[in-house]
């Protein structure tokens, strides 16, 4: 039993998603209700960032310290958090979290910092298959980060810039390095910054749609979706139908991990 409980004395279960760019935490109480969350930039000290995110989330949940009845770690750094009661891949956790939000068959696209995954989920929440991007960063958050550096523009301004674009520009390269060369070419041609940024968004949409046939309802998660609503609009235009973005789109993997932690505890105490 944890020593410090939030008001009401509920149990608390944690999902810790150690991604390549950020650490995300979701806390659920014993009923599966949302209790807290936090995000921290990964930086160079993975364990420090994870501990800080757990602290933040525990604070939001009213815990005096981060002590949980179960914690499942996920993401590329999942095995580094040795205190976890279990580790699950981000594929399983995203599927779990997404089905929790959507509750029907769908195709999940998670655009993370380092990878892009497409997971087909059936009506019972089972994964019917998944695809991940190949080793190149094109189509991922890292691609936008790299471009922001190249353009000397803050990433947080990208969405507004893209929204104000007045003409379509195509950035067609598979490769992030080649795409950077294309950007230079566009700058030389005098193409406006908003149009370049919209071209970058278009490139992410295109790379993602090349990975799989996007059938049925499409759900978009991950930091890129959470922070760039205009990119979602572009996705919908390209797809020809609306996409679903869960309320905490960046935390879907952490949510799934927390559900796994809760389910494991419930299984042991059934």
């Amino acid at each position, binding site marked *: 039993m944890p020593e410090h409980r939030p008001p009401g004395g509920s149990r608390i279960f944690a999902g810790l998603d150690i991604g390549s760019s950020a650490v995300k935490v979701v806390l659920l109480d014993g009923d599966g209700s949302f209790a807290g969350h936090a995000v921290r930039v990964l930086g160079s000290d993975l364990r420090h960032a994870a501990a800080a995110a757990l602290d933040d989330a525990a604070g939001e949940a009213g815990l005096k310290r981060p002590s949980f009845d179960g914690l499942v770690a996920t993401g590329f750094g999942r095995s580094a958090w040795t205190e976890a009661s*279990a580790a*699950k891949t981000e594929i399983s956790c995203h599927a779990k979290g997404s089905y929790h939000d959507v509750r029907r068959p769908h195709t999940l696209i998670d655009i993370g910092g380092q990878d892009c995954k497409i997971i087909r989920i059936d009506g019972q929440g089972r994964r019917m298959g998944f695809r*991940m991007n190949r*080793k190149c960063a094109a189509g991922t958050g890292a691609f936008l980060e790299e471009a922001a550096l190249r353009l000397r523009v803050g990433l947080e301004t990208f969405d507004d810039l893209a929204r104000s674009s007045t003409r379509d520009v195509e950035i067609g390269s598979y490769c992030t390095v080649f795409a950077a060369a294309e950007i230079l070419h566009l700058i030389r041609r005098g193409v406006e910054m908003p149009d370049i940024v919209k071209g970058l968004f278009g490139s992410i949409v295109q790379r993602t749609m090349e990975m799989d046939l996007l059938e049925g309802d499409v759900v978009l998660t991950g930091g890129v979706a959470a922070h760039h609503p205009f990119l979602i609009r572009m996705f919908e235009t390209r797809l020809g139908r609306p996409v679903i973005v869960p309320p905490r789109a960046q935390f879907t993997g952490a949510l799934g991990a927390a559900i796994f932690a809760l389910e494991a505890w419930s299984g042991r105490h059934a």
Partner: protein
Amino acid sequence: MDVGRIVTFKPFASSARMRELMAGYFRDLNRAALEGRPKIAWCSSVGPAELLLSLGYAVFYPENHAAMLGATREARKTIPVANAAGYSPDICSYLTSDIGAYLRRETPLSKVYPEIVTVPRPDVLVYNNVQCRDVQEWFSWYGREFAVPVLGVATPRNIAAITPELLAGIAGQIRALVPPLEKIAGRRFDIDRLRAVMSLSRDGSEMWKRVLEANRVRPAPLSFFDAAVHMGPAVVLRGTEEVLAYYRVLLREVEGRVARGEGAVEGERFRLYWEGMPIWGKLRDLAEFFIGLRTNIVASTYCNSWIFESGDLADPFLDLARSSAGLFIAWDEDAKERYLRDMAETYGVHGFIFHDAKTCPHNSNNRYGLPGRLEKATGIPTLTIHGDVNDLRCYSEDQTRTAIEAFIERLEEG
């Protein structure tokens, strides 16, 4: 994953005998190179080795040498040398690692057998391009380097059906190799000698098949990773008594495991099929990873490729052609799919792993939609991982492990 991470790699006692055999083979080759006799032929893995052996050649297999460069990770140093010499990073990394090693005047053989300082100088190089164009380019490089003849057989690819005309065409090409090979060997061709070598070769192949087929049972006594190592003698000692004797010994050990109900993977939960080339530099790592997941890769096209189709030896050239055209890599997509469906049933597999080897397009069978068709037809899940046969620059450890773990988690869900 919640699975116990106990990793127990179970070596076979027969491995000691295999090492002796391989040592004898490489030392004999080295002696031949130093003494100038018998003549040395370099042969591609599915080239007409039996013909060369029947003419008295000592036969060296560059693909085996390249696999050693991959397994020892020496390829990391040698591939860039070939790239710098004008051989693209996008072409076969067997080729680039091997040519790079030669340019660096290195061979992994020296580390195991200090008296061997270089690969044996060839008197002739003989290829069968059934697997790819690259093998021809690879051998041609050495042909220019050593100023020796390069002879070859062109086997059609995307074969839908093996017809008499197809076999006659390949057989004719192999027969045409005889006069130049006789001349280089300084020895007359003897068709009965060829039949005798082929008979031994077929017996060895049959014994290897029995070893692999022992994996039909649960738990499977050996893994793909074991088999990829133990196929060494099948590759380099084709057509010899020793290889037949070796696989009898190995089969006995494998059958002992079967009798005791002992699997290569403790607590085997899932049985997978590996389609495509091994990732040589990660063979041991992946073997241990799968043991940790309590999952065994029980069968593979790669290891099955040294089971040669054979008929009667009345016309041995026709039979060599049959072996060549009977290789998986030569078939069209429908034939490949039928074969994989058959393998799934034979070995009771829960999933297929397709290895998309960046530099080996012809042996990356995921590229024309086969995993999707297979999954639809059988209901068996497939996973494609991206890597390479020898070039670890094309391999992402984290991404591969995550994909495999996620695949196993999917199988756990049922």
